[in-house]
């Protein structure tokens, strides 16, 4: 049952984008020399849009102009035009019959001015937050326009390494639940993250150094899963003190090159 679970998860073909060449041949061995880990890549989605490039801005301006020229007048604009004409007529010919009607009605121009006032009173939140300025990598408020992912310091063998949170696979559970368990161990139970799909996004396998390698323990395979953080407040205490939220570009500062290569393959940075 255990072997079958593991084999089935591995035999699901990895999606086109993630790993082009990884096709698993399911050799039905009962006891495998590889140790399996499930790792979770927890992403905080961007909260604001990225600034436009120069060409994008020009294009946007052009499209807006086209749309404006193609569009018809809205109700408000029609009302405004009519009232302007009425005003002009009043000025020229000094009609008195309009007065009885016109005084109680709110003019479209007044409405516009009111809206302008409201707009000026509105103050947007700053795009570059304090966390950005202080480069506090532990907070979630940094870099609101890109994906942030969680890195945790873990002890593998003798070394303390920065990794995506991972936990060993227990026989009898699916790899996805392993990854969720990994997330729960590092961030507490009440994390609101959504995993899309049961298929892993990437795989990193490595062999143990010769000293530790045995017949049954050749190396380890780490399967990566992706989850999206739903709520942005992590008021629960972190169990492990060393954690970081980093963007894709900053990953290079922390991860080892081989590991980084595999992780970069499935990270989408639009």
């Amino acid at each position, binding site marked *: 049952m255990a072997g079958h679970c593991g084999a089935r998860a591995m035999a*699901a*073909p*990895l*999606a*086109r*984008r*993630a790993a082009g060449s990884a096709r698993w041949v399911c050799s039905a061995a009962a006891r495998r020399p590889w140790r399996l880990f499930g790792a979770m890549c927890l992403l905080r*989605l*961007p909260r*604001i*849009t990225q600034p436009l490039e120069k060409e994008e801005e020009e294009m946007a301006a052009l*499209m807006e102009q086209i*749309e404006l020229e193609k569009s018809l007048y809205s*109700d*408000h604009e029609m009302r405004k035009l009519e009232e302007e004409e009425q005003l002009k007529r009043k000025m020229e010919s000094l009609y008195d019959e309009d007065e009885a009607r016109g005084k109680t009605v709110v003019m479209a121009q007044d*409405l516009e001015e*009111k809206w302008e006032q409201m707009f000026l009173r509105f103050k947007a939140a700053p795009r570059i937050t304090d966390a950005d300025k202080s480069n506090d990598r532990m907070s979630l408020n940094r870099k609101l326009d890109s*994906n942030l992912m969680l890195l945790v310091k873990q002890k593998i063998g003798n070394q303390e390494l920065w990794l995506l949170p991972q936990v060993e696979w227990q026989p009898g559970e699916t790899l996805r639940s392993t990854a969720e368990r990994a997330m729960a161990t590092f961030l507490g139970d009440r994390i609101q993250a959504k995993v*899309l*799909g*049961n*298929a892993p996004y990437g795989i990193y396998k490595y062999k143990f150094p010769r000293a530790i390698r045995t017949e049954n323990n050749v190396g380890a395979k780490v399967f990566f899963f*992706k989850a999206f953080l739903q709520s942005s407040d992590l008021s629960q205490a972190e169990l492990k003190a060393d954690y970081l939220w980093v963007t894709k570009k900053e990953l290079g500062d922390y991860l080892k090159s081989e590991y980084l290569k595999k992780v970069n393959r499935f990270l*989408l940075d*639009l």
Partner: protein
Amino acid sequence: MYPSMTDVRDVPQWRGGLASHGDTEDNNNPCNRLLPFPKLSLGQRSLLSHVLGLEERAAAARENRLCAAGDALLACHRSYKSRPTHGIGKFKYLLPKELPKRRKEKVQMKEINAGTEYQYGDINIQMTSYDLCLVEHFAQYVHRLCNRLSIRVNESYAMPTKTNEVLFLEEKGSKMQLDAVLTTHQRVVQICGLSSTFAPILLEIIQSSQPEGVHLLMKQHTEADFKSRLKSRPELEELLAEMS
């Protein structure tokens, strides 16, 4: 230039038959007309060609007495049953016979959700926003993205717009009501045949390219969604209620 060149009497009067001044071949031969006037300006030449054109048409139409009455410029080439070219433009008899279409709404097709292939059935990607241009362009982008990724797009349609009136009740001295009229637009792209390994990737791509102000919703297509597009017929429902 040469005022005496074209005499009115020389022009054949096309009124109920030909002019009486000569039915001979000499007169009707165009070449004979040109010879006495070797040097012509363009204007005169065009007038002459007009005259000669009239003559040629006159010659052809003399065979066909039926359109002798009429304007000089009438082209008399109607296909009568006696002519060999009768029915030359017909093509409907070559097309396959079309049966009259029955006006019946098709119920949706449902595919297996979790089978050995791990494929989703019909999925609706619903995009809602207050800004029409934005949501339309985004719907177009999603449609093209699915085309490029060879995902079958069943339908791409728009739901009717909903208009909301927003009333502000300000209580600063006099009670005022500021009205704002907001229109909500919704576009739906329906895809089918999405494999479960690719679905999260597609969702992530669409999510990361979502513009601001657009709500995105991906859900499976149900009968309720299908029915929401149809208009309800109150009279029919009344009659049905009366009957039962």
